[in-house]
C-alpha cells in the first residue's frame, strides 16, 4: 500500500521586500496515485491571495500555513485556474475561514460553483476569456488565458514582482511511490514523469501553441504548477521547449 506523503510546513519559493510567493505544503491521498497537489499563497504588503486552494482534505494544512504568514482575514482573493475538485473543492471552507476572499474563476465556471453547496453569499469575480488583473497589496497580478489546457475556461496567474508563473495543470507530474521533490533538478528524468499527463489531459497541439506564444512574452524566472515540481532557472526554458516539442497530444492522437 502506498504510504501517504505529508509535508506540513510551507516553503517560500520567491521573495522580494514585503512580497512573497509561498508553497503551502502537501498531503497525499491514496487515490491521487502520485498526482500530488500544490497550493500557493502570494502575500504583498499585508494582503494575500490563495492559488488553487484545493479540496477538503488539504484545507486544515493550507489554513494553518497561511496563518503563519498573514491574518486569514487579510486574504483578499482566491484564484481558481479551473473547475476541478482538487482546485475548488474547499469552497465552503474558504467562505468560512477566509471570509474576505473574493473568488476569481473563469466566467465559464461561475454557474457551476453553487453545486458545491454555496446557495448564497459567494463573492465571485468572473474572469473574462481575455484575462484580468488582480490587485493584492501593491502588486498587480495577471490572470493569463490558458484555455483548453486542460479546461475550456482555464487561466494561469503571473506574478510580475518575483516573476513567477503559476501554471495550473501545465507542468503536472506523477511521482513514483516514495519519491517527491519540490524543485526540478534533473529535467530529463522529470520530463518522463510529466509526459503521460500532458499527452492525455491536454486536448490538442493548437491550444498549447497559443499558450506558448503568450507566455514567451512574459519575463519568467519560476514556473510553479498545481501538480508536480517547480521549475527554476534554466529549467524554465527547458520546460517550455519540452512542451513545444511534445508533438501530438490529446485529440491529435485519435
Amino acid at each position, binding site marked *: 500500500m502506498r504510504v501517504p506523503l505529508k509535508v506540513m*510546513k510551507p516553503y517560500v519559493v520567491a521573495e522580494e521586500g514585503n512580497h512573497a510567493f509561498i508553497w503551502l505544503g502537501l498531503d497525499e491521498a491514496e487515490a491521487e496515485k502520485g498526482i500530488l497537489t500544490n497550493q500557493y499563497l502570494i502575500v504583498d504588503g499585508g494582503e494575500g491571495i490563495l492559488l488553487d486552494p484545493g479540496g477538503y482534505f488539504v484545507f486544515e494544512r493550507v489554513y494553518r500555513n497561511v496563518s503563519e504568514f498573514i491574518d486569514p482575514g487579510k486574504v483578499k482573493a482566491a484564484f481558481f485556474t479551473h473547475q476541478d475538485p482538487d482546485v475548488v473543492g474547499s469552497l465552503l471552507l474558504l467562505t468560512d475561514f477566509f471570509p474576505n476572499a473574493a473568488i476569481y474563476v473563469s466566467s465559464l465556471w461561475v454557474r457551476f460553483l453553487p453545486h458545491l453547496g454555496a446557495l448564497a*453569499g459567494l463573492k465571485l469575480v468572473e474572469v473574462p476569456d481575455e484575462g484580468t488583473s488582480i490587485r493584492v497589496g501593491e502588486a498587480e497580478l495577471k490572470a493569463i488565458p490558458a484555455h483548453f489546457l486542460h479546461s475550456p475556461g482555464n487561466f494561469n496567474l503571473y506574478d510580475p514582482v518575483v516573476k513567477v508563473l503559476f501554471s495550473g495543470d501545465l507542468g503536472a507530474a506523477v511521482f513514483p511511490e516514495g519519491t517527491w521533490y519540490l524543485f526540478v533538478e534533473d529535467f530529463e528524468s522529470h520530463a518522463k514523469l510529466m509526459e503521460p499527463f500532458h499527452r492525455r489531459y491536454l486536448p490538442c497541439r493548437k491550444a498549447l501553441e497559443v499558450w506558448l506564444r503568450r507566455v514567451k512574452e512574459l519575463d519568467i524566472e519560476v514556473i510553479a504548477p498545481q501538480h508536480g515540481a517547480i521549475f527554476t532557472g534554466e529549467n524554465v526554458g527547458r520546460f517550455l521547449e519540452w512542451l513545444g516539442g511534445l508533438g501530438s497530444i490529446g485529440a491529435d492522437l485519435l
Partner: protein
Amino acid sequence: MGKKSVKLKAPVEGAARALQMLRDEDFVKSTLPYLVGVSKGKVVLRFRRMMVFHFQDSYELLITTVDGNVNHMLNGERSKIRVTFSAPSKDLITAVATYEGPRAWVVGACLSNLVRALIKEAAARAPPETVTGGTTAAGHEDLSRNLALVSWVSKLLMKSLLVKSEIVAIPKGGLVNYVENLITEEVLQKYRVVYVSGTSDKGTFRLLFIDGSLAGTYVNLGGEEFVGDERALNRFDGFTKVRVYGSMIKDVSELR
C-alpha cells in the same frame, strides 16, 4: 566545513506529551521545515539565507531515546545535524542543535527555526492529557471545544450548505439578539443542525445550534479564545461578515 550550535528553551504545556510526539518518525519527517524532497526514505532539506545563499543535502533520520531525552540524528551525504530534546519540567522543553558541514553560516541561521518549528508542532499535535468528553445538560458532546478545531469544522462544512451570508454592524452586547433573528424558522425547520460563524476586524465567533438550541460556542477576540463561554458573545462587536450553514447531518457524532 564548519560547525554551529544553538541552545533554546521553549515553554510548552504538556512537555512530556510533546516529547513523545518528537519520537514519532513520521511526524518529524512531515513537520521538518526546509523539506523539499523525499526519496528512498531520506529527506532532502534546502536551507536558505536571504533568498540568495542555499545549502541542500539528503538526510537519513535516526531517532533515539537516551535517559528520557529524544535525539534526532540527520545524517546527510555532506553534513550532519543532531538535535537533543529534553523536558526538564512539565511545561518546558529544552533543545540543543548542532550542525556540522559546509556553509555552516547558512544552515546555522536556520537551526533555531527548525527546532522551534518541531517543538511548536509537537505541542500542537500531542494528544490531550485527559479526554474531557463531557456532556452538556442537553446531552450533547463538548461541541464548543470542537468548534475551536479547524479539522472538526471542516468535517461539518463538508456536509453543509451555505444558506445565508451578510455583512452587519453589531453593537456590543447585540450579537445574541442578532443571531436569534438571523436564524429564521424556515432555516430551523429545514436543518436540524445549523452552524453560524462571523468575522470582524476584532475576531471570530462560531455557534452551533441543534434542534434550535445553542449547543456550542467558540469566540476568538484578538487571539484570546473563549470556548463554551457564552458571555464572550457580548464582547463581540463591529462590522461583521456572518454566514449561516445548514447541515445535512442528523447527528453531530457522525463527525468524529
